[in-house]
């Protein structure tokens, strides 16, 4: 290996730039942002309908419009960040100066403005939520991008992303814990208002601390992909299209988590039970995620997706048949099992997205992670928009009674049809409609066998591309690995192609070579320009530059 490359490699992995306080403060900033997201995603709909008395249809339309608008915000913000040049860096200024407005808008979202007319409430709802979306993007996009520029040390980047992601997942549940506590002492109206105030005051503190502590050390030259290019790619790569359509339809299953607060409030008549339903579900989901890699060895991504979807639907049908007249803990226990496959369903689409990237690279020699994940992110927001709209429509259909706000703390009776409807929204409706997400999978053809063939071709191609850059023994090991894989009988068994690579490589060696190769080409992360020939080397390096998409939670929330 070239001595300068070795030296650079050592500098990149050996020198530590981040201190303990950087990990802590950045993680707390993630915790704070996730706490706000968890609060708004989990409780805003019920706040609007059950405290402010706004008709569910009006709320649903607002969410649809605002969330889709928000989906298109991210690339715009990405471009703004790319063009920013300040002495504090490109991203930190937005975090520092956006934190307080983020906190203020959070408080405003949960103000119990019950004395306003319904028209004014609707206008207030639109203005505050859209502002929340804009400010959330102003803070969130740079927050996601900071790990990539915080340290040239790739290991440190990976570590800070992993730690902060776990802490962020915990932050998302903070609203759940707070509501379950406040609901014991306060009415619904004041519970939500107090949560908004607590999180709205504390979150900016942690966001600012995170922005102050962390430094931007690596100039980022990555260009934000254009959303139109993303759509072009979507319709060109039919496998990616099938995967995205399938994932778009998974918004039905998100009705389960979105309706928990309604179930505990209006069926079990105890808001504090929210934690008893939501937390086991989140734990079950995480357990499912841990099993995903093991299950991936015995079936491919498509089979895993279908199996998990069917299991989830069957389990929800069981909960429906048992009914809601049993004690609440029986329902909560059954829901734990129903949520086990959700973790798998959160992880598998990302694995499939990577497979579609490999497929496209094999077909066209182009690798377009930037546009791919831009569309994945947009899909997530559109799914969330559809989920809220559909939930609001169902609430209206099932005659969910909204309060008359002229009456103090009014909590109207809910008819049996409304209660049964809420339970169906929680169980049988997502059970039935979630199966629709399997339909686009019919057109998804990247089975384990096909992916094995694609991977074989890609390994050989990449080995040929990089093999001659290094000393024969290291490059030779890679070529040898590729030859071993190539010589396997008629490809690998379904789902096992990865284990073959692991057995014969040097996969780690290959990755090491790729990282070094990209590091010597550029001091910063390689540019994932649209249409550029960005190879696996770039991909591996970019993984540590870009914040990975959240695989630890439900990314539709």
């Amino acid at each position, binding site marked *: 290996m070239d001595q300068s490359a070795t030296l650079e490699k050592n500098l990149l992995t050996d020198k530590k730039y981040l201190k303990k306080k950087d990990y802590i403060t950045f993680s707390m900033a993630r915790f704070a942002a996730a706490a706000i997201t968890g609060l708004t995603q989990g409780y805003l709909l019920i706040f609007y309908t059950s405290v402010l008395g706004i008709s569910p249809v009006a709320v649903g339309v607002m969410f649809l419009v605002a969330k889709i608008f928000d989906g298109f915000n991210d690339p715009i913000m990405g*471009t703004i960040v790319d063009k920013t040049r300040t002495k504090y860096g490109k991203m930190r200024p937005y975090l520092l100066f956006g934190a307080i407005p983020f906190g203020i808008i959070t408080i405003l979202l949960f103000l119990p403005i019950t004395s306003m007319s*319904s028209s004014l409430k609707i206008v207030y709802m639109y203005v505050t939520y859209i502002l929340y979306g804009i400010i959330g993007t102003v803070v969130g996009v740079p927050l996601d991008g900071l790990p990539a520029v915080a340290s040239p040390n790739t290991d440190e980047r990976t570590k800070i992303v992993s730690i902060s992601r776990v802490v962020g997942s915990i932050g998302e549940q903070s609203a759940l814990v707070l509501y379950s506590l406040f609901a014991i002492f306060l009415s619904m109206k004041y519970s939500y208002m107090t949560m908004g105030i607590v999180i709205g005051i504390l979150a900016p503190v942690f966001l600012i601390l995170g922005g102050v502590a962390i430094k931007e050390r690596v100039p980022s030259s990555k260009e934000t992909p254009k959303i139109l290019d993303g759509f072009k790619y979507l319709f060109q790569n039919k496998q990616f299209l099938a995967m995205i359509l399938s994932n778009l339809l998974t918004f039905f299953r998100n009705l389960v988590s979105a309706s928990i607060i309604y179930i505990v409030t209006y069926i079990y008549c105890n808001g504090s039970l929210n934690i008893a339903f939501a937390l086991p579900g989140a734990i079950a989901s995480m357990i499912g995620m841990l099993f995903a890699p093991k299950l991936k060895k015995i079936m491919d991504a498509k089979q895993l997706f279908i199996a998990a979807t069917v299991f989830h639907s069957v389990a929800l049908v069981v909960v429906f048949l048992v009914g809601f007249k049993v004690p609440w803990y029986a329902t909560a226990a059954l829901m734990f099992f129903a949520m086990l496959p959700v973790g798998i369903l959160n992880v598998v689409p990302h694995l499939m997205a990577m497979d579609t990237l490999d497929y496209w690279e094999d077909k066209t020699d182009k690798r377009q992670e930037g546009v791919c994940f831009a569309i994945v992110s947009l899909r997530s927001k559109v799914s969330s928009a559809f989920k809220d709209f559909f939930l609001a429509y169902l609430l209206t259909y099932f005659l969910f009674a909204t309060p008359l706000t002229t009456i103090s703390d009014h909590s109207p009776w809910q008819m049996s049809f409304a209660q049964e409807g809420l339970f169906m929204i929680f169980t049988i409706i997502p059970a039935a409609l979630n199966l629709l997400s399997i339909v686009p999978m019919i057109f998804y053809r990247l089975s384990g066998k096909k992916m094995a063939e694609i991977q074989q071709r890609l390994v050989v191609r990449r080995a040929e591309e990089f093999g001659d850059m290094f000393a024969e023994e290291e490059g030779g090991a890679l070529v040898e690995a590729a030859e071993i894989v190539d010589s396997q009988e008629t490809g690998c068994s379904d789902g096992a192609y990865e284990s073959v690579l692991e057995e014969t490589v040097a996969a780690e060696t290959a990755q090491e070579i790729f990282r070094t190769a990209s590091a010597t080409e550029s001091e910063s992360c390689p540019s994932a320009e649209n249409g550029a020939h960005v190879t696996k080397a770039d991909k591996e390096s970019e993984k540590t530059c870009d914040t990975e998409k959240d695989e630890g939670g439900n990314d539709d929330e």
Partner: protein
Amino acid sequence: MNKMKKRITLLVLVLALVVLLCSACNQSETDYLAELDQNSATYVQDYNAMSATVFAENTYRYTATIYTENLSNFDYENREMPTDKLDESQEERKKWAKTNVTYSFTRVGADCYVEMTVQEPVLDESGFPTFSDEKFKKPVYQEDTVMQLWSYSNGNVLLKVDGTTVYEGEKGGLSFAALEGAHRVLKYASDEFDLLSAYVGSPSTEGLFSVEQRKWFGKKILASQNYLVSNLAGNTESFRSSALASGYKEDLSFDWSRVSTVSTNTVCLTTKKNKLISFEYYNEIIGAYQKTATQIWNGETVTSWYGDRVFAEKSVFEIEYPSSKIAVEIPSV
């Protein structure tokens, strides 16, 4: 950057337009009231058609859960809420009771038989429920009481409570109210011999606020809600004609300083295969009350008026129809 500014400006303008359009999407009061009047006529027809299905049957049975809740120390006269929670006598004392009733009706020709079982909670001297489990508020129930009524084509009836005959004679001479003191279950009986018919009654369109119809997998649901306003003189009228009410739909509001109470009733009928399978009745009485507070900056005492629930009732009837293959018989006395 100019291009970016233009795009952002365009987006903001589009959003502002959407917000404005959406705020104007509310139905006008005139349209709302016109629609309500139109729905009233069909509501009465549908209500009668749906409710009549049960009474046309020769045999049916239902279970009824009647839940009532009463804020016992609300001061109706001075219109004040109990506020001092440190004083036990002033602490909000909600009396509530949940009664379970099972009822079966059988008709053969002109002869009828009714059997009603009532399960009532045990109340203390103050009329508050007693609990076997204070933590989970599990009420203690009295022994079930069984009422049996035979009504014959000759106009005579026989009434038994817990197996003991309490009345035998002409139907016209039977007064459940007069017998109620000795047999508490009879307060649930009615001149129609049917608690359900007393609840169903005739549809009322007075103070009608909303009418909704839904269909769901073979079920038809009809729901209505009304608001009636009582003034300080005790006169009750519809919110539409009352000077004490203003606004409509979600904006309906009341002048609590001049209102005594507001009553809101929700009724829901559900049919399946053209037979009534459930009847629900929900009632809330909202009492107007005052709160006084001293303004810190000038020492003035200000009185504000509010409305809050002081009484509520929830009665749910779930109706079943025995198979037509089973012979309909009146049990012997």
